[in-house]
């Protein structure tokens, strides 16, 4: 009864509102203008700019000249591109394969309630605070064969020339990436696990399902969108592991860790070939968009909107 009384004026207000509601709601658009300005000027225009620059020649200082398709031909004729493409995908896939199970399990583990897990989690998340430059420098010192971890732990097999041998350097890059980024994804999974309704586990327990069964039949399916969110961030992010690799290996030895983003930087800002570097940038954008769309598809087409919201 009191309910009906209180909603009466609301209903009236709603009616009068509906007349100019559309107008009023559209008028809110101006509030987006400052954000829009920054995004258009420093993200959208550069995005168009990079495509245009890929058809020009520029050394980074002097005049910009037209180059037609030259940059594209030269980049695609260059084996360094295919090496960088291969490495980018290799690091992306292996990183995903390494990081996802670890972060998922750690996320489930730390979402539990025991106090010791909370204490562990305090330390787990420390790498989130370190800059990639700091992480890379720390690991370089740590890998010193004489004064680093190998001697400290008395494990001679760790005393290798990690940064001097191509496949070791590549493995090291993948390991350090995991060291730095697993904590962030653990956090995402921890949040995801905490949102799973407890009642599902209660029901499973009544049906006699054990921990493992519960994990595969409740936790994993319920985390579907968390997995997609985390994977999207991980995969798109892996295109930009620039800082870490730049400081850790500089792309070497040889070109063994020269991923696309690094290739772009080295061509553009070291070799002063902005045109070819822009070609690499365009390739990066295309890969990023394609991967994101692919991952959203995995989440189901109808769910696309809500999935992006769930990011």
């Amino acid at each position: 009864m009191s309910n009906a009384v209180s909603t009466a004026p609301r209903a009236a207000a709603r009616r009068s509102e509906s007349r100019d509601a559309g107008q009023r709601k559209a008028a809110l658009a101006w509030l987006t203008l400052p954000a829009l300005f920054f995004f258009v000027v420093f993200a959208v225009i550069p995005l168009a700019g990079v495509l245009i620059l890929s058809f020009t020649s520029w050394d980074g200082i002097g005049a910009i000249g037209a180059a037609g398709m030259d940059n594209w031909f030269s980049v695609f004729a260059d084996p360094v591109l295919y090496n960088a493409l291969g490495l980018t995908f290799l690091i992306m896939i292996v990183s995903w394969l390494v990081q996802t199970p670890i972060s998922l399990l750690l996320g489930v583990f730390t979402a539990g309630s025991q106090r010791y897990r909370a204490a562990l989690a305090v330390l787990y998340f420390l790498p989130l605070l370190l800059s990639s430059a700091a992480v890379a420098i720390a690991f370089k010192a740590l890998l010193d064969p004489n004064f680093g971890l190998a001697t400290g732990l008395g494990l001679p097999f760790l005393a290798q020339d990690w940064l001097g041998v191509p496949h070791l350097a590549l493995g090291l890059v993948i390991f350090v990436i995991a060291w730095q980024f697993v904590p962030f994804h653990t956090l995402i999974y921890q949040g995801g696990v905490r949102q799973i309704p407890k009642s599902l586990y209660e029901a499973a327990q009544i049906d006699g399902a054990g921990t493992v069964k519960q994990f595969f039949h409740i936790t994993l399916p319920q985390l579907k969108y968390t997995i997609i969110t985390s994977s999207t961030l991980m995969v798109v992010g892996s295109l930009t592991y620039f800082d870490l690799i730049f400081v850790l290996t500089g792309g070497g030895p040889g070109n063994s860790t020269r991923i696309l983003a690094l290739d772009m930087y080295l061509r553009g800002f070291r070799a002063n070939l902005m045109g070819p570097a822009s070609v690499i940038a365009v390739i990066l954008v295309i890969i990023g968009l394609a991967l994101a769309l692919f991952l959203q598809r995995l989440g189901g087409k109808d769910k696309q909107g809500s999935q992006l919201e769930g990011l």
Partner: protein
Amino acid sequence: MSTVLKSSTEEAAAGSPTNASRPKRGLGQRLSRLNIPGGLGGWIWLAIIILPIYYVVITSLKTQAGYFGQNPLAVPTSPTLENYQLVLEKDFATYFMNSAIVTLGSVIPTVLISFMASFAIVRGSGRFLKLVNGMFLMGLAIPLQATIIPIYLMIIRLNLYDSLLALMLPSIAFAIPLTVLILSNFIRDVPNELFESMRLDGCSEWQTMWRLALPLTRPAIVTVAIYNGLHVWNGFLLPLVLTQSPGLRVLPLGLWTFQGEFSVNIPAVLASVMLSTLPILVLYVIGRRQLLAGLTAGFSK
């Protein structure tokens, strides 16, 4: 039946103080509940995380002689702060200030304008707003680092090359998509009733935004401020490409150049790593709960 129900309610109460009654159950039951592989994996991962950090901390406190003479993982016999002193004499304060200016100068505008945009996207309607929202969502999928060359060109043309402002402007743009996404998710959760009652009280949308939406969105604001702050504070590529003067170096860049200069003095290099992380570490210790709760909520909604 009743026992089953009882155990299920106990399970539901996990995390609450009633947990204390658990140990009364059988030891075997407790052991089966302990999740041994999980615990083991957890401890192994802890070692992987902690060992490098431990190494950095203790090495930064060693003298050169201690570094060369001692077991690398041993606690320094005569800990010294002279490495820190050396680093502090090397313009660390300048780098720190530059980082602080760039971080605050990016995060505050980002949060402010993203909040306004998020409010409009959630509360408003129309084709324009849909378009804007769609564009920001696309921004999430694009590795914005790929736009660094045109940004470099623009910053030169704007006569902003080698200035701190040059670092802030792109940082703001790069942070907008995710910030808008997280903030609009939170604003969407504000019950419509509250907006309506503000309307009935005669508040304009502008007033509603600041007086209702802003306070209610505070946890999300904290989240995005921290997340963006960490990103900008630790950013490397933009400073590398857009600045040149030693006086304008931010911490990660200062760290990198310092490493080049002092590559033979590893304890000093690691002291600079520590010093660059210390401010964030202090903030982490103070605001850990807030930070982790905020990040968790922000990314798993």
